[in-house]
């Protein structure tokens, strides 16, 4: 076996009582692309953070070119020629490209010679076929460009081993192919690449070998050539994956409950994020919204729930124009419920006990209060009832909700948003960071709500989820709906084209 490259031996890491990594072995020869596959929480990111010196392993060895190394800090990792590209891009948006690249670079002396660095950077970029303006401020660049800046950042530091953590999750489909091509060029230049993903097709397209992680341990280590993707999927999940289409009774009603016309809104920066969106949702229908993150989905959800002021357009609920209604009115009088994407930041108050989080939506109504007074005892009882019925695992409803797992937190949010019997339920990325069991529970709740006749808007970037629960799928790109289709006609080519912004005739 060649000593050149990276070797991990028996790496373990425990957080509290949770074993994140349990004796992981891995060998990555120089000049190869090595994929690491695994579900959320399988330990991929922890492993990479250990390689990059952000965490210290509790046990095991790291060998680089055959020499055991202790990677004590990111700085040390860089000295060893390891560069990391995080899932969330680590760029200071107010700085220029070259400033970001130069940030933290050693041996610069007293003067910041930006012009000289910019020249070198441009030359480097050209050698890899990247075309980039070093003096552009980062926030003005599209996501794919920013990712190139990140890659240039590590290349500029002479990294030989480049770790990419779910690099395509921020990219539009049209940008993915270019990105994969970039990886091939890096490999051709002799760089070693570790590529974390849960997207099988990308792994199949570019990787030489793949290590599959499951619950912190290696469940397979195999060559990509000759391994069918379905085999990889099975090893990742630990059982056969069937794209389960949950039992669905056909929609009963034809009543159009929600009618959105030409909705426009701006994002926090003032950019036009929603450029005129129109659709209907019938009672007892789930309309899925697919698309790459950041194409106006968040703004759509917020405009519907009143959290964001719509600039133009109308929202009608059962024929009533509710465009001007306040958040409070929408939630209480009109019966709009919302499961937000950011559980911790928006959906919950982490420091409050579980039962108080159960009353966040309706604390001004019975049974949580009467008049101006809270009814704590009855709130506890309600919360306990929900906890039982929605299978929220906890010690006590007095526990701060911070200490519940993501899945249990999400179940409580769903209980809260559904038990109030809403007419419109807006759900955004409900399965982010959840395990398979919790995802199933979430989807069962959503389908039960559909059964009850609620109009449901299900926004997600997980196409699989959307296709398995939704009645119709709207695809968003750059603030517009590029097409609405049924799951049966949703071939990956067609959806890919829509996500990429190739508009087709609207099937309203």
């Amino acid at each position: 076996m060649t000593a050149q490259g990276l070797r991990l031996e028996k790496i373990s890491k425990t957080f509290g009582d949770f074993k994140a990594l349990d004796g992981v072995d891995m060998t990555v020869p120089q000049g190869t692309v090595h994929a690491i596959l695994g579900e959320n929480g399988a330990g991929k990111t922890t492993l990479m953070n250990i390689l990059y010196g952000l965490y210290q392993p509790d046990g095991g060895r790291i060998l680089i070119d055959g020499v055991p190394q202790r990677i004590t800090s990111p700085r040390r990792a860089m000295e060893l020629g390891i560069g990391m590209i995080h899932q969330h891009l680590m760029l200071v948006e107010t700085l220029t490209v070259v400033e970001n690249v130069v940030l933290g670079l050693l041996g610069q002396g007293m003067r910041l010679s930006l012009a000289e660095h910019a020249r070198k950077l441009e030359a480097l970029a050209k050698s890899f076929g990247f075309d980039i303006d070093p003096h552009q401020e980062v926030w003005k660049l599209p996501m794919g460009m920013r990712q190139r800046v990140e890659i240039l950042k590590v290349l500029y530091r002479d990294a030989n081993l480049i770790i990419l953590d779910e690099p395509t999750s921020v990219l539009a489909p049209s940008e993915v192919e270019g990105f994969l091509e970039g990886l091939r060029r890096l490999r051709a230049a002799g760089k070693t690449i570790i590529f974390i993903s849960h997207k099988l097709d990308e792994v199949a397209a570019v990787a030489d070998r793949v290590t599959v992680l499951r619950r912190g341990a290696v469940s397979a280590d195999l060559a990509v050539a000759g391994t069918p993707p379905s085999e990889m999927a099975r090893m990742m999940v630990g059982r056969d994956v069937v794209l389960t289409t949950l039992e669905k009774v056909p929609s009963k009603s034809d009543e159009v409950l929600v009618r959105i016309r030409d909705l426009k809104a701006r994002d926090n920066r003032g950019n036009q994020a929603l450029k005129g969106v129109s659709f209907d949702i019938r009672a007892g229908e789930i309309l899925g919204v697919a698309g790459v993150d950041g194409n106006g989905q968040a703004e759509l959800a917020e405009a519907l729930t009143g959290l964001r002021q719509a600039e133009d357009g109308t929202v009608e609920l059962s024929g009533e124009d509710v465009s001007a209604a306040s958040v409070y009115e929408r939630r209480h009088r009109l019966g709009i419920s919302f499961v937000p994407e950011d559980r911790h930041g928006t959906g919950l108050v982490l420091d409050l006990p579980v039962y108080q989080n159960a009353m966040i939506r309706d604390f001004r109504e019975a049974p949580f209060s009467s008049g101006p007074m809270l009814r704590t005892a009855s709130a506890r009882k309600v919360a306990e009832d929900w906890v039982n019925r929605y299978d929220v695992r906890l010690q006590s409803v007095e526990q701060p909700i911070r200490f519940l797992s993501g899945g249990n937190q999400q179940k409580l949010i769903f209980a809260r948003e559904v038990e109030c019997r809403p007419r419109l339920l807006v759900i955004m990325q409900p399965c982010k960071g959840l395990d398979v069991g919790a995802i199933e529970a979430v989807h069962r709740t959503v389908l039960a709500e559909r059964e009850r006749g609620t109009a449901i808007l299900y926004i997600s970037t997980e196409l699989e989820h959307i296709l398995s629960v939704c009645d119709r799928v709207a695809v968003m790109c750059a603030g517009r709906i590029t097409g609405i289709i049924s799951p049966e006609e949703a071939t990956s080519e067609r959806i890919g084209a829509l996500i990429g912004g190739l508009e087709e005739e609207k099937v309203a």
Partner: protein
Amino acid sequence: MSWAGDISSLVDFFSTVLRLSTPIVFAALGGVLAERAGVFNVSLEGCILGGAFGAATGAYLLGTPVGGLVFGILFAFAIGCVLAGLAVGLGINQLVTRIAINILVLGLTSYLARLILGADATSTLPGFSPVEIPLLSSIPVIGPVLFNQDPLAYLMYLLVPLAYWFLYRTPWGLNVRAIGDYPVAADTVGVSVPGIRAVCVIASCVLGGLGGCYLVLCQVFVFTENMSAGKGWIALAAVILGRWNPALVFVACIFFAFSEALQLRLQFNNPDVPYQLFSMVPFVASFVALVAFAGRVRPPAAIGTKYVRGGK
């Protein structure tokens, strides 16, 4: 506008502006440095006071203004170390620690001043005297205003471009700017967020302390309780108005000093009107300027937040 009547009165007025601006400029540069690194330095007021107290003590004990300067800087440095330890090290709420420091410094300096300076508290301390720069000082109007000043004012002339150069033209300045905006990014490329923040806080306090030194050693030559009298807060307002850019902050400080000089003139020329009506002017000016210009300004994004690696 009788005061603008002749040249000498004009020179007089602008020298006053410059003298009044100097302590604020020192403190405001300190504020820029700290806030660019993501630390909201509300304790500038305490730093000025601490610097002033140190300067008075040093000048009194050693009998030279240089001794005063050294003591003043040391005292402000000590305050900076305490602050850095509490806020960056222990991660205690930045605002709380800084306000606590202000209260502590106020009490401590008042107490120690009475112990150390005691009965001599009102006698004049040794200070710096103006140094005329040959040739330059003979330029009409500008010369006597700008180039017949004390050494600390010349230091201020140097510090403004130096601060600008530091922030925008050195790798360290780049680190500071990055940390104030997105500390995680800086951390992942090996820039030590707590380390740089601590250094910035300490430097910020020393700059504030220099402002205090100036008050004692170049302006009034005595130490009085609470002699900072809100200058630290005006400096903070200047930081916001100057959009965290040393050059613009300097302009904002001059603006505040101008309004202060103006109110002194008004007081002098209107002895019948209670002076408090005029002494309000700089604060009202700060207030109005903030309300008029500050709303649309984006501060460094990570300001006031504690940085925890891997934290949410």
